[in-house]
């Protein structure tokens, strides 16, 4: 079809305010979802708000992983397939530290618990950050001038290797840690119950996100990252050490994944060698939904996906249920990629046909 080529180069003639079939279909879909949510809200308001709060915490964990995808994609245009498994690796490392080094129990005193958790955060972030930077050096950097698909393929390989490292290290079963976080209620209004562990997830995640924004927007290193993402060659000419900047980006992305892994383990109390794969894909969907390469977009997308998952699994009135979560999330991914590849917040890219 010759129109394929033309539509890339020629400006769109139609006025933008005329909705196309995509717009109408999308709006209908959104209306349908909103209607479903409102019906549920009317039927069981208590459940609805409780699930909403749960979804926010879930979205926060997804956001940490999604930001890693977005950071790396922004700078290298590489879908870092191994990122989800890095998250899992962070979770496993934290679980091992919780179990075997700090030996935390479920009723730990606060002056034991919090320093240990803080130490775990630091350790998980450091381990995963360094590991991610190493992976970049070994598996992606030599292929920087190779065809685009080459590093994606090595990333897939890396993902399998990480899984098998954990499989060899801790075996095929779930590693279960005691629920060290306090599970008592923050508040309990009507039938809406909000527990401390859900709040703590947010309390750890939000500062990390703010720190990342500060790092990218305000520091010199962040400036270098943005410059490299915009144009690698021009950045190099301006005296930016591109390789070091890319390594640093992978370090940051890995650290976020490590923190995500730790929080996930503390909250869900279990992790396994294959936990990262699916969660990574879901987070990637979140990053795409928000507009890949766009940091606030990743957080927004992750929140939306977290809420969708929570609502789907928690609501009682005609929800498809947990069996279908994956299908729903990936359908969203496909729909977004096909109809709005730039995502919710992203700008038009050459990708967007």
């Amino acid at each position, binding site marked *: 079809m010759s129109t*394929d*080529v033309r539509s890339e180069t020629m400006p769109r003639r139609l006025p933008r305010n005329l909705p196309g079939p995509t717009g109408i279909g999308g709006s209908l879909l959104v209306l349908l979802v909103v209607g479903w949510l409102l019906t549920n809200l009317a039927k069981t308001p208590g459940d609805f708000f409780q699930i909403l709060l749960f979804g926010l915490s879930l979205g926060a964990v997804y956001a940490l992983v999604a930001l890693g995808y977005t950071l790396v994609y922004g700078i290298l245009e590489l879908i870092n397939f191994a990122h989800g498994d890095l998250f899992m690796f962070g979770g496993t490392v934290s679980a091992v530290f919780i179990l075997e080094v700090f030996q935390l129990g479920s009723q730990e005193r606060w002056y034991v618990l919090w320093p240990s958790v803080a130490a775990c955060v630091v350790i998980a972030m450091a381990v995963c950050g360094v590991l991610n930077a190493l992976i970049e*050096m070994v598996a992606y950097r030599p292929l920087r001038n190779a065809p685009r698909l080459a590093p994606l393929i090595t990333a897939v*390989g890396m993902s399998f*290797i990480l*899984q098998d490292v954990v499989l*060899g290290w801790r075996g095929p079963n779930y590693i279960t840690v005691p629920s060290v976080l306090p599970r008592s209620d923050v508040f309990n209004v009507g039938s809406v119950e909000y527990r401390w562990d859900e709040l703590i997830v947010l309390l750890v995640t939000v500062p990390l996100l703010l720190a990342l924004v500060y790092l990218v927007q305000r520091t010199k290193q962040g400036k270098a990252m943005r410059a490299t993402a915009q144009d690698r060659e021009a950045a190099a000419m301006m005296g930016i050490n591109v390789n070091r900047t890319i390594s640093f980006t992978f370090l940051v992305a890995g650290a976020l994944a490590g923190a995500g892994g730790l929080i996930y383990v503390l909250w869900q109390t279990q992790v396994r060698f294959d936990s990262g794969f699916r969660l990574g894909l879901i987070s990637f969907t979140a990053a795409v939904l928000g507009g890949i390469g766009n940091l606030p977009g990743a957080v927004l997308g992750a929140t939306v996906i977290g809420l969708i998952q929570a609502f789907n699994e928690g609501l009682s009135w005609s929800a498809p249920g947990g069996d279908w979560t994956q299908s729903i999330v990936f359908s969203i*991914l496909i729909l977004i*990629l096909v109809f709005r590849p730039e995502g919710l917040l992203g700008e038009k890219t050459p990708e967007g046909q």
Partner: protein
Amino acid sequence: MSGAALSPSDRLRAAGSAWRRLPALRRLKLIVGLLAAIAIPLGFVDTSLGIAIAAVAALYGLSKLPQRPKLVAQVALIVAFAYPEPSLAAILAVFFGVFHLPAHLRRFALPGVALAAAIAYPFFLDKLFTIPLLGEFPSVNTGVAMVVFIMMAVGLNVVVGYAGLLDLGYVAFYAFGAYTTAWLASLQFSQVKLHIGSVGITHSLPGLHLSIWLIIPIAGVITALAGVIIGLPTLRLRGDYLAIVTLGFGEILPQVARNGADLSGFNLTNGPNGITPIDAPGFGHTLHRITGGVLPVDFLSDPSGQNMYFWTALGLLVVTIFACFRLRDSRLGRAWIAIREDEIAAAAMGIPLMRTKTWAYASGAFFGGVSGAFYASFKSAAFPGDFYFNISIFILSMVILGGMGNIWGVIVGAALLSYLDREGLANIGAWINLHFHASIDVPPYESGIFGLIIILVMLFRPEGLIPSRRRRAELHEGS
């Protein structure tokens, strides 16, 4: 621009080019010496393995000799092996013989001999020698699986190797073919009763029972249609996004298969239990009688049924390979390669991008569907587990290892990896445990091993074991 320190990859590349600058004889001596150095210590662990590596070194050295001494040395090698391992000597004799043919004959002789050996394989299997480290030659059952995987790899090669579209959900097509067979030749839809050429079952059984020979092309066509339906909206996307979308489909379909036992009351897939049993292929009573019992009524109840499955698979594989060669050289195939090399230039030359890519997808899906359909009938079952993402990557590693775009390479890669998957890894594990008194269970680490293979191949030999000349030029132009 990376400052003074050389990165490891740069250093490696420098070492590689220094290696290529060495004189040929020097390189040869080094390689043979290295192999010998590996062979001698290993010989103390396992004598036959040491001998095998030494023999490989000798073979490699021989291949670089001038014509006349090569012939003498080869004859000597055959004679040397004639007594302890007559089967090995015979293989070597055929192998050397083929390479002494003139080039224009060799082109046909090599595949011809390979095919003849494959067809006769069930007959001489038990006379073959034991491979050091790997153990026995694969059984006929493994052979069927290997041929099916080769077929899938050749099909995926159309999508990945020719058209350059990374498909991370290829297993979906395979599983779709498997489920098509399961629907059309089992008790799954017992609400209806339809028998068309079914063999080996009583005619009063409910459900759809079509002849497998009929189902295989039907499954291929249905899967190709599924490929078009998946492809049409998604093929507009650029490479890596397409990969993710195919992966997404590859994750949605197994969930549908798992949850499909009760789709608003309708049992489509029988959920996690899968659909089993599935009818076996066969030739029916009439043909059985006419041929005097050579062609079995159905493969399942026949004593030589395994061999029949194997030969059927070989037949399908030959058709697949032939079709892929013809496709590659056709106008369509050349258009695929043009798109792979430069999409914009191809479009500028008037190649319709969407239609051409969709055809690549449909062709790849067709072969995936055919192999899935056949394999389901062989296993007599279709499970949601058939959709596992690992299988997609497994098939992709075959294509990458063998050499994207080169059918012979893909065949070698697929044969090697599927053998490792079925028997090889377990045997290697057993060997390690026996000789080093360890207790490692190797097969669970299969995907990691394949991941490592993918990475190593992409880093050090991106064109694969047996590269296509064009692909090699493409991959090396950038660096």
